[in-house]
């Protein structure tokens, strides 16, 4: 199903992606190295395989390093029993991963492009007619009354537009998975975040879909601590403080939003920018607190608007902050 996309990386111009990230757990500033997002992921995978002998990395083409090179060097270091190619079959990859995880292993599966994750849908959810990520991974613990779980499963997949990927190398399917109780959805915005969040996902006792912004694989370069550190899941981060409007986003879109904040500042608008990081279960409280301060909310995502996760955020925040938003509207409208 997958088609290759080898030339992508060389076509993207280099630009530094700056964030105001601070390391939240561990991570001494000693041994910090400038890395792009792809190398940060690669480093996280090295650490994951090194720190747990029951961890495995597999997927289409991962053995030689993967089409995006995120798995480079892993097979050489950890052997082909722990890092291996699978046939071209997404439902097989996820189904195999669930079985491996259910036996107490850390199964780190790669789906080459998020656009091709749909055959694996059934292996992942709740409703019997929906589908392995949705029907199997997500419900494994619940349906067994906590007798079995596949919490060791992490599905990594590159998502999002890069400018020339067309329909099938550009999609942002995160909302589909956010509708499924039982899995977590995590999207990093930068190399340092990617490494810390991926390690948390791999070690979290729940199945997780980890969407990697492929636009940033080589574009985003950041100082990344070389040691083993984890960033907390379900914890949003205010990456820019402001007082007039709250902006919420995740992944690659944050770089666009950061630019928008800078532009707005020139016009005298003070923006607060929040990186949600974990989409489900998401940090409602942090967004709520910010909107209660600013009275306004703007959500921006790459995915289609209709039925997008932005709608979920808007609905929840309107429900929680209705009177504050109303006040803001009142004070804004001038007669």
């Amino acid at each position, binding site marked *: 199903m997958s088609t290759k996309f080898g030339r992508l990386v060389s076509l993207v111009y280099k630009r530094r992606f700056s964030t105001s990230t601070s390391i939240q757990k561990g991570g001494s500033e000693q041994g910090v190295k400038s890395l792009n997002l792809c190398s940060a992921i690669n480093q996280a995978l090295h650490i994951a395989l090194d720190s747990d002998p029951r961890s495995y990395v597999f997927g289409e083409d991962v053995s030689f390093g993967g089409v995006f090179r995120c798995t480079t060097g892993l097979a050489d270091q950890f052997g082909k029993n722990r890092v291996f190619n699978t*046939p071209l*079959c997404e*439902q097989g990859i996820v*189904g*195999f991963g669930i079985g*491996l995880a259910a036996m107490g292993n850390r199964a780190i599966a790669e789906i080459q492009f998020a656009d091709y994750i749909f055959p694996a849908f059934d292996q992942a959810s709740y409703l019997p007619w929906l589908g*392995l990520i949705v029907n199997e991974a997500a419900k494994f613990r619940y*349906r067994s009354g906590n007798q079995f779980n596949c919490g060791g499963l992490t599905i990594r997949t590159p998502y999002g537009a890069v400018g020339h990927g067309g329909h099938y190398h550009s999609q942002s399917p995160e909302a589909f998975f956010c509708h499924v109780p039982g899995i977590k959805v995590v999207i990093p915005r930068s190399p340092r975040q990617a490494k810390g969040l991926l390690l948390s996902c791999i070690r979290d006792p729940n199945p997780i879909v980890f969407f990697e912004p492929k636009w940033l694989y080589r574009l985003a370069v950041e100082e990344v601590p070389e040691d083993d550190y984890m960033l907390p899941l379900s914890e949003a981060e205010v990456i820019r403080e402001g007082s007039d409007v709250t902006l919420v986003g995740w992944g690659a879109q944050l770089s666009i939003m950061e630019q928008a904040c800078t532009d707005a500042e020139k016009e005298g608008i003070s923006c607060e920018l929040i990186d949600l990081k974990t989409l489900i*279960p998401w940090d409602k409280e942090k967004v709520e607190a910010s909107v209660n301060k600013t009275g306004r909310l703007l959500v921006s995502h790459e995915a289609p608007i209709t039925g997008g996760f932005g709608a979920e955020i808007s609905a929840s925040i309107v429900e929680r902050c209705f009177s504050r938003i109303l006040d803001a509207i009142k004070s804004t409208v001038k007669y």
Partner: protein
Amino acid sequence: MASWLFARSRTFFSTPHRSKSFFFLPFLNHSSSSSFRSTTLPHRNSPTLFCFSRHESTKADAQLELDHDVTEDDVNQAIDFPGGKVGFTSEMRFISETAQKRVPCYRVLDDNGELLKYSDYVQVSKEMGVKMYSHMVTLQTMDSIFYEVQRQGRISFYLTQMGEEAVNIASAAALAPDDIVLPQYREPGVLLWRGFTLQQFFHQCFGNTFDLGKGRQMPIHYGSNKHNYFTVSSPIATQLPQAVGAAYSLKMDGKSACAVTFCGDGGTSEGDFHAAMNFAALMDAPVVFICRNNGWAISTPVQEQFRSDGIVVKGKAYDIWGIRVDGNDALAVYSAVHTAREIAIREQRPILIEALTYRVGHHSTSDDSTKYRAIDEIEYWKMARNPVSRFKRWVERNGWWSDKDELELRSSIKKQLMHAIQVAEKAQKPPLEDMFTDVYDQVPSNLQEQERLLRKSIEKHPKDYPSDVPL
């Protein structure tokens, strides 16, 4: 009568044209070869040829599809293709879709439970034989009681194993307790064999607080970690690729055990079946696939499910060993599964077993199968080909079983079952909080919030909520 299941409505592929007038040299005539593309099949023993059929160019297709009978021109003339050398031939011949003769079905006992001469089977001790028979009777009795209980409206749903008791019990008997079982849903006999009590079956079907699944799933969705029996999931065939993952884990841990997974004939049409077979073969996973070919996927007969000679032939394309066994012959099933398990572990390879059996009961209590199949057909399988009475005759013939034993067994099981119903029915429903736990390892804030909302709503409208659920 027995041939109904195997009757084929179409003729076999006739012997391919051997005329040399169709002869042309490989790779020369692009336009004429393209006309054969639609009828070309990949070679079953040579995965490398499959790669050719995926090429954009059609030139190689017709020439390279070899059959066993096709003579290679010269053994030294071969294409050194990734995956191994492939010989050339100048004979243009398409591979037929299937063999002229159907794959025979391995059996040990005839319809009267008499041991066939020169049978190749695994010996069963008196103790084992009696235990197998007793469990088959228990399963049979459990099914009829549960069915009645559902009909009385005391449980919401049920699904019987009638006609498939031999596949259930004999396969379980042939396995070791360490073997990991990933069931479909018509194999509770395996769990019964492993020591899941009648009481536990009833707790699950009544969805009470003692159900290990905490009352969350429909009846018959059993699972028990203690018994290495993964919890049943409704979607068809999803357990098959998972079994390969579980088997790979056993392999990496160097365990002397295998994964065993079940599916039905309908399940083999799912993508997951094919994914699992391919993954298992490539990863040399010690997994035994047992397909209960019971003739019907709800109302769809096997003739409308696949054109192939059943399921066992499908393994061949994936380079997986397989055997077709009479699923109503407990001794044959026991022997086949016992041997398959040994090979899977010793040689670290997957095995596919196709058990020919018959679903005597309706698909479930929500189904009336007389709407789509002949009563005569059901009766024939229920009476003449009954796997329980067949095995009974063999056990009796060995002098291991008497009428007195039979009476005692049946009355004792019935007593246990009646008692188990009463206990299960009286037990409390699981508490409300169980609705929100185990979605994740811990209840996240969004679910805590939903639980609070639900409790508020119950406080406000207590009459609109079931009174038997502890808050």
